[in-house]
């Protein structure tokens, strides 16, 4: 073979090799980029539901419905639950929304701001319209509807799988033994705490790791002292968190921390530990939402006995514009439905949920939802009855500290709350930090 022929053969081989490499890399690229792109409207094959790992109630209640009252809907569109840790939910939602691949039903983000963003880009179904069309809008508790609308800029973006009011749970027995009356005002609350501390009982348990159980005290104080629109004014830019009246609220909460009323190392206390401190009788008071009723009713967790737990509204502030019957309320983790996959089968599921979820959740899981309870359910204990009565009689609700904040301000507020009560941040610094995060847009 001549050398020329050899060179030609080698060139051919080189070209072939290059071509193979090229084709291989292009096909690799194509596979990598071929995500789950979507069109404008799709027919779902499953009633897919993306939830957070921490929340088991909704998942379990939906599963029991799928075997019971919602069997026909389940047969047409089987329920499929996927969970992610709550801390990574927002990220997952953003990525899924970016790929136009949101599931049929999904937990709607940790801050309402994200849900509104999804709504603005047309990813979230208008549930008021859809539920009215299905003829089941009247199955929702009006209080829950108004809470949702207050959260999501007047829109019904999520279903009220939970409906919670918040307040202070207290250990009746400890109060009785030490001759303390249930406090009705902030000053009485402080006195009660001082007395408990003096008697060697930790007055409050709170999770500084979560942060929100502490910032809820600030919003509670603000709503009582400045009225129910105190935080709306901040959201609208009519007031600043650094205004003296707002800093005063942070000051009051910081003072409780300074006196050691939250116990040692509050920043390291996680949610379960805080709950456990109260339910094991180590702490006398516990600011929490009514979802804690499930834990209170559980004899394994609750060592003080459900009959010894009382519920107090957030106390009044002398000379304040707010009143104690304005309860902070929320719908737990809001659960939204995707606009593009809301078809007949999804509708069947939703209307079945609207009619049956309320009683199933209450009966099987001790959880209060924003759906009407259509089958009579006997309450597990006295404090559950008290909370349910409070919900049905409450006239006006208020939101929580971060409800109208951006995702960033929410994180900043909750991660700095422990610093506020442990004294490493002054009330002025805390409010300034949060206000700066609010302004950064």
């Amino acid at each position, binding site marked *: 073979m001549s050398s020329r022929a050899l060179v030609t053969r080698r*060139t051919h081989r*080189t070209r072939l*090799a*290059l071509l193979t*490499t090229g084709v291989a*890399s292009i096909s690799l*690229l194509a596979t990598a980029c071929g995500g789950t792109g979507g069109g404008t409207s799709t027919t779902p094959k499953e009633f897919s539901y993306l939830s957070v790992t921490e929340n088991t109630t909704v998942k379990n209640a939906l599963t029991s419905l799928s075997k019971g009252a919602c069997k026909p809907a389940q047969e047409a569109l089987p329920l499929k639950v996927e969970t992610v840790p709550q801390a990574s939910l*927002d*990220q997952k939602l*953003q*990525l899924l*929304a*970016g*790929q136009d691949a949101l599931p049929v039903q999904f937990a709607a983000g940790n801050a309402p701001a*994200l849900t509104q*963003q*999804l709504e*603005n*880009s047309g*990813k979230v179904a208008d549930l008021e319209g859809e539920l009215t069309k299905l003829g089941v809008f009247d199955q929702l508790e009006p209080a829950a509807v108004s809470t949702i609308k207050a959260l999501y800029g007047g829109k019904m973006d999520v279903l009220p799988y939970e409906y919670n009011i918040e307040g202070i749970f207290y250990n009746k027995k400890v109060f009785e033994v030490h001759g303390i009356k249930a406090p009705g005002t902030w000053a009485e609350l402080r006195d009660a705490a001082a007395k408990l501390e003096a008697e060697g009982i930790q007055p409050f348990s709170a999770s500084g790791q979560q942060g929100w159980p502490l910032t809820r005290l600030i919003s509670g104080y603000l709503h009582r002292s400045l009225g129910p629109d105190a935080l709306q004014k901040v959201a609208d830019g009519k007031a600043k968190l650094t205004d003296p009246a707002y800093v005063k609220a942070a000051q009051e909460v910081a003072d409780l921390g300074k006196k050691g009323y939250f*116990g*040692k*190392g*509050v*920043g*390291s*206390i996680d949610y379960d*530990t805080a709950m*456990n*401190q109260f339910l094991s009788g180590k702490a006398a008071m516990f600011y929490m939402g009514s979802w804690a009723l499930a834990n209170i009713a559980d004899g394994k967790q609750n060592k003080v006995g459900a009959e010894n737990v009382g519920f107090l509204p957030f106390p009044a502030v002398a000379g304040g514009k707010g009143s104690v019957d304005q309860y902070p309320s929320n719908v737990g983790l809001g659960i939204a439905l995707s606009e593009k996959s809301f078809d007949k089968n999804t509708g069947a599921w939703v209307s079945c949920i609207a009619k049956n979820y309320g009683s199933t959740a209450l009966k099987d899981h001790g959880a209060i939802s924003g759906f009407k309870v259509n089958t009579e359910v006997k309450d597990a204990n006295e404090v559950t009855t008290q909370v349910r009565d409070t919900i049905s009689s409450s006239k006006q609700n208020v939101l929580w500290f971060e409800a109208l904040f*951006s*995702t*960033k301000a929410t*994180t*900043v507020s909750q*991660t*700095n709350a*422990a*610093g506020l009560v*442990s004294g*490493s*941040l002054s009330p002025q610094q805390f409010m300034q*930090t949060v206000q*700066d995060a609010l302004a*950064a847009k």
Partner: protein
Amino acid sequence: MHRVLGDRRAIAILLGPALLVYTLIMLVPMAWSLGYSFTRGNTIDGFTGNGVANFSRLLADPAVRDALWFTLKYAAAVTVGQVVAGYLIALLYVFFLKRASALVRTLVFFPVVLPTVAVGLLFQKFFQVAPQTGPVNSLLNAVGLESVDFFGSAGSAFWVLVVMDIWRSMGFYAVLLFAGLVDIPEETLESARLDGATGLRLVRHIVLPLSLPVLLSSLIFSINGTLKVFDSIVALTGGGPGNGTTPLTLYMFQTSFTYSEYGYGSTIALLLTVVCLLVSLAVYRVSRRDLTEG
């Protein structure tokens, strides 16, 4: 061999695939991220041009200043700690433990193979004050001191982080430096000893200069790793209290993925790249000069 390497096509075939993969997974994302730093928006709302607004925000953002300062402080403390502790342990292996060092080497190296999250949790429990008093606080109580909430203030949380990361990685640097130390010819050491150099003087005048190249490599390794620290901080403090222990990497991650400001996140990433580049260049310069002298 020369004919193959002299052929441009052969070079293309040999380098092509690696270069292609490198371009696709390193250079393209880098250029892409640079492009994002001139935009605002996220995957839901879409991206729009934003000019240099992200850069002016970067300059004015106090959180960036805090994070940058923390990153540098942390990198300096941990790098010095890791390399010094590693060097001391390596000296111990070579001059004191000698052949018996295998078991100690394994034990000291052990934390390197532990997952960071596990180490983070271990130290969290070790230094905790609530719900249970951890061993460190128990010790403080035993000698009559008050418990300290180590994770309650940025200052003490920083030192716990530094201690944890030094403990976690000194075994690695010890092995690295050990390899450098055993390379020092025995004759050189012997003649130095005959000349009367012992103990500290031997280390100062003979061992240190001869192990300088490997010491500098360790330094480069360490500083680049510590500037990009992420996992150990997330595992131990989560950047808290507040943003007291938030390095640039974590702030970048939060900005992009928690606050969904991808454009600004990319700008922070660019800052981090520039910092890494500057530090690496500086260390390279120093090391090159010293290598030629040595």
